[in-house]
């Protein structure tokens, strides 16, 4: 093929995200909606599709789904219905999935996310609809049979369908991160990709730069981690670009991401659209959604992380960095705000939480949720330091002890023997000893070298193993030596 100037292409990306709603029970039955467990330990006649069983919508799931819509600034339908999506697969007990087809609960929203430091972008959300999860088909190696675990069958999901507004793999990744954070802060989902409570399919096409029409779209499935969103898209865009530049064509198809190789492989070609024979589920009535209910949920909607971040920065004077770190996870923000509420100024609270508590969590690979130390415990500690009972350095040590053992501040300080010595007579004796031992430095001081005082202070601190109250020691030294210069 003749070497010509190659056309430059740009990608167009849209994500379809499935997110498990954090309800106690499944969407249409009373079974617990947990993760894992003995296979088929959370099942009943309804979620195993025993003949004659019927679905009843979980009201809590509806609330959470509306909340998702509100968090994404969607319009909430006044009436919503459920439809059956018909297909056969062993993990789909009824032979159809109860989903929402042409009248999704929420529509026309958007997600704001950060593309680069400080620069945000708005990606449109086409729709958010409710549906039930399928079970899990297992194919044990070295056997000719397959197994089905229906614990997950009927777990409530929302599918969040994004518009093709993302222009790069990095944007797609940022969008997904922001979406996850938004949903976690809204309290609607754990959004844990490892546990499958957040799943992402990516639609991607390419087009010549400057073209406004969309190219042929390919759907990528089985993207199982945040890192892989970018990996899968980078690969797929390169594949499509190469195909186009070598005169090939893109086929509309579904491809599967292969984690080990970082590639995508064709699963099935969509010659004609899959026919799921959607029709309204006659077992479920049309649900009328009271505007008062939507308003109630809107009022109860927790502050989004972006609003929080701005508030920390603008109203509380935190650095951009601190504000960002403290709004990574809802638990962190909650802890930080509780520390502020318990009486620490935001700046100080940020330093302690961000610098010390989070640092400890990272080192010890622990989660904030499992921490025994409460915000009040932390505030107690800081107050002890403020009262001079602990040096700043000692306070940090005590905090580590508290975090390690769950001890309260006073007990931890006691057990580490780090309470500051503020007794003038015992400190005075140590000062006297040091003055005797350090005749040379004393001589320097007498010779008019003022900085020698600090050297002496350091010697006394060392002699007290860092527990002496530096202010008191300085006072005692001055008392005993007088100003720098010859003794009077």
């Amino acid at each position, binding site marked *: 093929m003749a070497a010509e100037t190659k056309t430059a292409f740009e990608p167009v990306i849209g994500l379809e995200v499935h997110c498990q709603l954090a309800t106690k029970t499944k969407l249409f039955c009373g079974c617990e909606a947990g993760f894992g467990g003995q296979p088929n330990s959370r099942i009943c006649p309804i979620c195993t599709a025993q*003949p*004659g069983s019927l679905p*009843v919508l979980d009201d809590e799931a509806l609330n959470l789904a509306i909340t998702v819509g509100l968090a994404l600034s969607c319009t909430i339908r006044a009436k919503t219905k459920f439809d059956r999506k*018909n297909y056969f697969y*062993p993990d789909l007990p009824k032979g*159809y999935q109860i989903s929402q087809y042409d009248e999704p609960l929420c529509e026309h929203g958007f997600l704001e996310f950060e593309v680069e430091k400080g620069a945000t972008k708005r990606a449109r959300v086409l729709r958010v609809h409710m549906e039930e999860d399928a079970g899990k088909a297992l194919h044990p190696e070295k056997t000719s049979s397959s197994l089905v675990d229906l614990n997950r069958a009927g777990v409530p999901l929302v599918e969040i369908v994004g518009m093709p507004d993302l222009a790069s793999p990095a944007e797609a990744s940022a969008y997904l991160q922001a979406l996850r954070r938004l949903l976690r802060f809204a309290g609607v989902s754990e959004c844990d990709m490892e546990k499958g409570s957040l799943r992402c399919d990516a639609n991607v096409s390419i087009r010549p730069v400057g073209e406004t029409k969309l190219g042929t779209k390919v759907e990528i499935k089985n993207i199982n981690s945040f890192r892989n969103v970018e990996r899968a898209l980078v690969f797929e865009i390169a594949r499509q670009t190469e195909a186009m530049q070598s005169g090939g064509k893109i086929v509309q198809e579904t491809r599967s991401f292969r984690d080990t190789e970082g590639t995508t492989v064709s699963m099935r070609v969509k010659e004609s659209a899959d026919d799921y*024979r959607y029709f309204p589920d006659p077992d479920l*009535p049309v649900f009328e959604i009271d505007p008062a209910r939507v308003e109630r949920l809107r009022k109860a909607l927790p502050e989004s992380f972006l609003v929080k971040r701005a508030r920390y920065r603008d109203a509380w004077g935190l650095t951009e960095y601190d504000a960002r770190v403290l709004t990574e996870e809802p638990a962190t923000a909650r802890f930080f705000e509780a520390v502020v509420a318990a009486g620490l100024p935001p700046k100080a609270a940020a330093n302690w939480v961000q610098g010390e508590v989070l640092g400890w969590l990272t080192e010890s690979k622990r989660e904030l949720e499992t921490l025994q130390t409460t915000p009040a415990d932390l505030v107690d500690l800081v107050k002890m330091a403020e009262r001079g009972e602990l040096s700043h350095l000692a306070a940090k040590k005590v905090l580590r002890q508290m975090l390690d053992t769950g001890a309260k501040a006073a007990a931890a300080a006691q057990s580490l023997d780090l309470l500051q010595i503020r007794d003038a007579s015992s400190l005075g004796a140590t000062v006297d000893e040091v003055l005797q031992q350090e005749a040379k430095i004393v001589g320097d001081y007498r010779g008019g070298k003022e900085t020698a005082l600090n050297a002496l202070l350091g010697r006394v601190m060392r002699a007290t193993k860092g527990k002496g109250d530096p202010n008191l020691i300085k006072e005692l030294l001055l008392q005993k030596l007088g100003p720098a210069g010859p003794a009077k």
Partner: protein
Amino acid sequence: MARLPPELTRSARAIADAVRSRKVSARDVADHYLERAARHDGTVHAFLHLDPAAIRAEADAVDRRVAAGDASGALLGVPVAIKDNLCTRGVPTTCASKILADYRPPYDATVVARIRAAGGVVFGKTNLDEFAMGASTENSGYGTTRNPRDLARVPGGSSGGSAAAVAAGFAPLALGSDTGGSVRQPASLCGVVGLRPTYGLVSRYGLIAFASSLDQVGPLALNVDDTMLLMEVIGGHDPRDSTSRKVDLAPLAKAPAPTLAGLKVGVPAEYKVEGVEPEVRAAVERCEQLLVKAGARLVPLALPLTPYAIPTYYLVVTSEASSNLARFDGVRYGPRADARELSHMYGLTRAQGFGDEVKRRIMLGTFALSAGYFDAYYKKSLQVRQRILQEFTEAFTKCDFVLGPTAPTAAFPIGEKASDPVQMYLCDVFTAPAPLAGLPALSIPCGTTKGGLPIGAQLQGPACSDFRMLRVARELEKLLALDLVPCDPASAPAPTNGGASRGR
């Protein structure tokens, strides 16, 4: 030998009262019906499953309960035969399909649980057209049921086993299900009473779905009073069924009886068409005359959408059935065909498990729901349903109830329509409209043909008028003064051709 005084064999209510006052034991009642079934069901084949030991144990439990001083329960000691598409915990429930051979549900349908709670004795599982698809019980995967009044003829369907069981005196009460006439038409052909309640008045939880938007469980009995008795037990809101109406049944059941004087009875011109047997027409006209004599007024009606009911009905039921029956895939229950590949396993399991009529409907429904056809078929059918409801709603501004024949003919010979599905579908011409509109309707015996075959009259009423309608029917029943007793299958005309076989 029969241990029941004859007056008890005519009335379920009388049985419950006698058990309550300990004039008779529930065990004696059960034994009476078990003996009759043992003697005649070899010929009639109303039951797919009948476990005498379990029934006696249930009856004994009722007797112990009464002996212990608890004589509550409207159905105390009353045997109730259950159509085999209603789930009974641990008891085979097959829908008369090979695909559910030996399936034992892990739970009781709400209606079954309510019968047990009322002291009723679950008395066997009755035959039906496979998955309730049919009007003759010939589509059963386990052999045809014979009409106990004429063993050469069909009992109607799909609740043919339940209607035959009541008519033959195998049980005083039975439950059926009615999607397009499956309670009323067999009631008519067997000479018993059958009610299709307002959609949502009786829970569908545990009724194996055929067409969810139309299926309703309904009672069958020898007379209207017993029908009402069973309806009071099974009806009322059930939180397990999202389509269940939040209606308090008690005030409806206890409302004062309407008088026939001044009652406006609608008589649609469309019900007096060609294809209705003259004897059927004459029997229904006799009802009209009796009602008029009692002070009722006949209101001529036009229900021009009547002929559209059947095509509409068959679009709705096939569409919904194609989806409802997807769960019978050999994965979780029922026989599984051996195959190397998943799709083959599905195909073979379903090919071997479903009968022809079921396959036909699944294919029609799959087609009707396909992309590009949905609007023309299913969606259109929903629109026609709305129109039919409007037509009825308008009619009920002019009259209280609509009267007509339940079925165009009396019981037809076994085999006559079996090979012609369209002829079979036309059996539903008068029973399909009410379900499409969600309205209640009932069939009561109103006479016989010269050959002694029962004829049924149908009343249709506005939503939730079930009990008022039953009371009117009870008045009409008095005027008709028929002798409503179980027939003796031994003295019925014998089968002339092949027909019934216990194909299990």
